[in-house]
């Protein structure tokens, strides 16, 4: 069972930039992103999130987001998608970095979640 990440940000640049930080420590972890609205304005898009799930080659996806409205679009996309997706209310960059590092090191989902616990800062 392989694990991957989907990153959802209100800002296209952040969604594009964060994988550069993560790829350095997790070059084998599939990372897909959804940034901005369908018009590439500040906001999020359920369609882009569905696309990011689809484009991710992993069997199971860990999803991270920046602000609350991104979470709503994420949850809608999860309801409409066939992929198995786990959503974390973790600090966005710190949580994604932690998960990416651990998945690269071969750590399983349970242990990844344990290490994400102290990073849960929103709901």
């Amino acid at each position, binding site marked *: 069972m392989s694990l991957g990440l989907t990153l959802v940000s209100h800002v296209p640049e952040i969604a594009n930039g964060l994988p550069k930080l993560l790829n350095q420590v997790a070059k084998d972890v599939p990372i897909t992103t959804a940034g901005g*609205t*369908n*018009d590439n*304005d*500040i*906001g*999020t*898009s*359920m*369609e882009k999130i569905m696309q990011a799930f689809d484009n991710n080659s992993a069997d199971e996806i860990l999803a991270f987001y920046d*602000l*609350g*409205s991104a979470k*709503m*679009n994420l*949850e*809608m996309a999860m309801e409409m998608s066939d992929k198995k997706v786990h959503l974390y209310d973790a600090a966005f960059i710190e949580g994604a970095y932690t998960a990416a590092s651990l998945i690269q090191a071969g750590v399983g989902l349970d242990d990844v979640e344990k290490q994400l616990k102290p990073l849960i800062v929103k*709901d």
Partner: protein
Amino acid sequence: MTLTVDTLTVWMNKFADKIETNKQYLSDLDTPIGDGDHGFNMDRGMKAVEEKLSTKPSDLTNGLKTIAMALISTVGGASGPLYGTAFLEMAKKSSSTDNIGELLDAALAGIEKRGGAKPGDKTMVDVWSALVPSVKAGNLTKDKIRSAVDATKDMVAKKGRASYLGERSKGHIDPGSESSGYLFETLLETEGLL
């Protein structure tokens, strides 16, 4: 108390008009306690809804689903998934009933599930939870709508962008509550619906 494709269309067109007229005001409400885009978001969304409904939907369920998808795709902000879920839940419910009260009950439950807000959190949930019972009791009035919207003014936001301001969110009407107020006003104005 029956929602049909025709009354739904009239309702949505009236709602779209009211949003367009008040889009600057809604965005101004969103400025001190949010990012100042609520009116523009809703206007973009309702223009897409109007456009979609210009082709008559085959039935009520499809009409409601079309509205939901248009809002989800075009609004952009938090109000997109929230209003979108409201109409999606109405679409689902419409396979077993066309009673507006029951449909709005399903819509409210959808908004609460999607956003996790409870009454008192200074969100559109405050307006919906105050007014859906009035619709069902057959006694919705403009005054009740106004009071439900105004009641959000002194609340401290617990959800959405305004919640980052804590106590400072007090003293401002919640923009999503104001737009929800318009939805109920135009419901009231739709002949033959309530």
